[in-house]
Structure formats: structure tokens, C-alpha cells
């Protein structure tokens, strides 16, 4: 009896091996490399001047707008996947349904476009 999770066993092993490889390299480098920290060495690079304030400050809102747009359109893309796989059984009715769905999202895209959310410098 084959469990539906059987194909994922190799994936888990590859993940483990990739993680082990990724952990081994810095570990070995840590053994090989010297360790002599000093105040000047660990200074943060900011064009050669002493850094002004913390780097972790408030950030431009445009990045958050991109994140919001991403969620909407990525969920759309995820919805398209089961449709694409079962498309040959669904026929033209399935096609029309998906076309309506896609059209709704195009309307949304036009809306955010006209609102100026897609222009980076504003």
C-alpha cells in the first residue's frame, strides 16, 4: 500500500541534504578561519563615514503597496493552476468561467494602474 505522501520522501531527503550542505560550509569555514574582531573591523560601511543613526528606520510605503498587489495577483495565479490541470475535462464552460475571472482581475489591474499604484516614482 503506497501512501500519497510517498513521493515526498525523496523531497524531504533532498531538503535535508541541501540543509546539511548549507550548514557544513559555514561550519568548516568557522573552523578554518581566524577570529580577531575589533571595533574598526566591525564598523558598518556607510561610504567611509561613521554611520548616522540606525539602519532600521521607517520605510517608503511603495514597497508595501507592491506587497498588497502581490497577494491579490498571486492568489489569482494559484487559482489558475487547478483550472489549467483539469482544463481538458472542463471544456469551453470552464474556459468561459476562467475568462470572466481573469477579466475581473484585469479590471482590478486597470484600477490600480489609474490610481497610480504602479508608478514607482510619485
Amino acid at each position, binding site marked *: 500500500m503506497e501512501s500519497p505522501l510517498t513521493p515526498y520522501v525523496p523531497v524531504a531527503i533532498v531538503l535535508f541534504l541541501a540543509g546539511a*550542505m548549507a550548514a557544513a560550509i559555514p561550519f568548516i569555514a568557522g573552523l578554518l578561519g581566524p577570529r580577531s574582531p575589533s571595533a574598526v573591523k566591525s564598523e558598518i560601511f556607510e561610504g567611509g563615514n561613521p554611520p548616522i543613526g540606525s539602519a532600521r528606520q521607517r520605510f517608503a510605503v511603495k514597497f508595501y503597496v507592491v506587497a498588497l498587489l502581490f497577494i491579490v495577483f498571486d492568489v489569482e495565479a494559484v487559482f489558475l493552476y487547478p483550472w489549467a490541470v483539469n482544463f481538458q475535462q472542463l471544456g469551453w464552460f470552464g474556459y468561459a468561467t476562467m475568462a470572466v475571472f481573469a477579466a475581473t482581475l484585469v479590471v482590478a489591474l486597470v484600477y490600480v494602474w489609474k490610481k497610480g499604484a504602479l508608478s514607482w516614482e510619485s
Partner: protein
Amino acid sequence: MTFVLSNPWLHGLVFGAVLVSVLMALVAFITWFERKLAGRIQSRLGPTMVGPFGLLQPIADAVKAMQKDFIVPKDADRFLFWLAPPLTIAFALATAAVIPFSKDVLAANLDVGVLYALAFSGLLAFPTWVAGWASNNKYALLGGMRMVAQGISYEIPMVMAALVPVTLAGTLSMQGIVEYQVASGWIIATPVGAAAGLLFLTTALAEGNRIPFDIPEAESELVAGPTTEYNAIGWSIFAASEYAHSVITAAIVSALFLGGWDGWWNLPPLLWMVAKTGFVFLIVTWVRWSLLRFRSDQLMALCWKYLVPGALLLVLIAGIQVSVRG
């Protein structure tokens, strides 16, 4: 051999070990290849001194990087600063698990292979952001933010472009898509497939933070972006995972659009897959050393105003093609 193939644990262990070690060796070789090619393009020789044709240069570089003092900057988040480089290489290597290199050479034949590959290659933006945040450096943080914005934006047209082969083949399994191409012709041979392939390659360049989309790193404005504060092995791992990501993306493009291990003249399928991957990687490298960098606003406009609607249109056209074919 059949015993190994039928037991999922042994299968994963054998193919996983081969996959990870071959990829790491390949990454070393590829840095040499890229430097040689870059040298040719810029009328230089590239590495020549270490070993024949400079072939041992990557090994010399790795040994050197390992012996350096790994400096953690002042007030950095030590744990995240250490964590970010291994995460990038782990994600890059894990992506390769579902790529079919021939009929049998495949670590995991998942039903949702395409989704798995896209998910892991999309995850790559986040360790970069972790690096930017942990560094406590303004350039690094800005670079990390740009990486996330660019990574998630280009994720959408990339996922949609990958939908075209999925729609045509009617399966999400990478092996299934290659088998479809063996039976009914390569996807790049159809107009919609060719357009989707080009679109996928473009978005893959952006996902992998390659020129002309290397805005997060933008040396002229951000020093080195998220990797500004990284030196020694940390920086080397970032560089290695960028190459690993590029070559794995090239393999995904070959499998989804160029017929994977399908070929002529009774040559081994594995050879065809490697040749196609090498060809796509050659294009990626050539682009890198020929083009200039986009601006941030051009990058975002290209993605949202052209690639997203274009990719959606391609999916709908692919749907019509499948329906008409019946």
C-alpha cells in the same frame, strides 16, 4: 538498481546526494565558465594562472574564502546574519529536486512539481531580505527591500508563464510535461509556447537578481546591496547560490519549454538535458555581460504594466489552443 528506484528512502538518498554534490561541483565550474566568457566578451583572457586554463581558480577562491575572518558588523542581528547565506544555498539546491534529467534520473517525481520548483525559487528573495535586515546597514536594507519588491512582483508573470506548458500538457508534474513534449513536440515550437518561454526567462532573470535586473545589488548606488556587509564565506555562499539558482532556472526552462531530455540521434537523454541547460545558461550569461541595468521604476513598470497582462493573455491563448485541439 530497481531496488533503489522502488524504495523512496534509498531513491531520495542516492539521487539527493548525487544532485547536491554534482550541483555544488557544477557551481564551481560555472564560476570559471562565466569568468572566461566575460573575459572573452570584454577582450580579456579571464582566469589563466591556476591550473590548466585557470580551471582550478574556483577551488583556490573557495579555499581562500574559507580561511578568512567572517566579520559580523556592529549591532547586527548575529543569528540572522549567520543564517541568511546557508538559507539561500539550501533553497537554491532544494529547487532542483523535481527537475527531470532523463526518464529515470529524477530525485522526486511530484504531481505538483512545477508548483514546488516555482515556490522554492520564489523563496530565494527572503533570505536576501533577511541578510539586508540583519546587516544593520542602510544600503543593505534598501537592497533587501528592493529584492523583495522585485522578487514578489516578477513571481506573478513567472507563475503565469509556467501555466502555459501546464495548460498545454494538462499536468503539473515536470516529468509529465517533458513526456508531453516527447509525444507532441516541444512547447517552444508553438507560438504561444515561444512567447511564454521568453517571458519565463525574462522573469527568471529578475527572480535570480541577474543583470539587467540586478537592481537590489546596483553597485553604483547601493555598494553591493544586501551583501554589503558580508565578506569571506558569507559572501561566497551568496555568490554560489546565485550561480546555483541561475543554472537550476536554466534547467527548469529546458524542461518546461525546450523539451527537457528529448533529443535526436540516439544520444543519451541526460546529455540532451545538460546541453540544453548549458545553452540557456550561456544566454543568461551573455545577457549579463552585454546589457545595462534597468532603473527601479522601469523594472516595476515592465513587470506590472506589460508582463502581468501579457502573461495572462498567453494563458488564455494557450487555453483556446487546447480547446480547439480538443
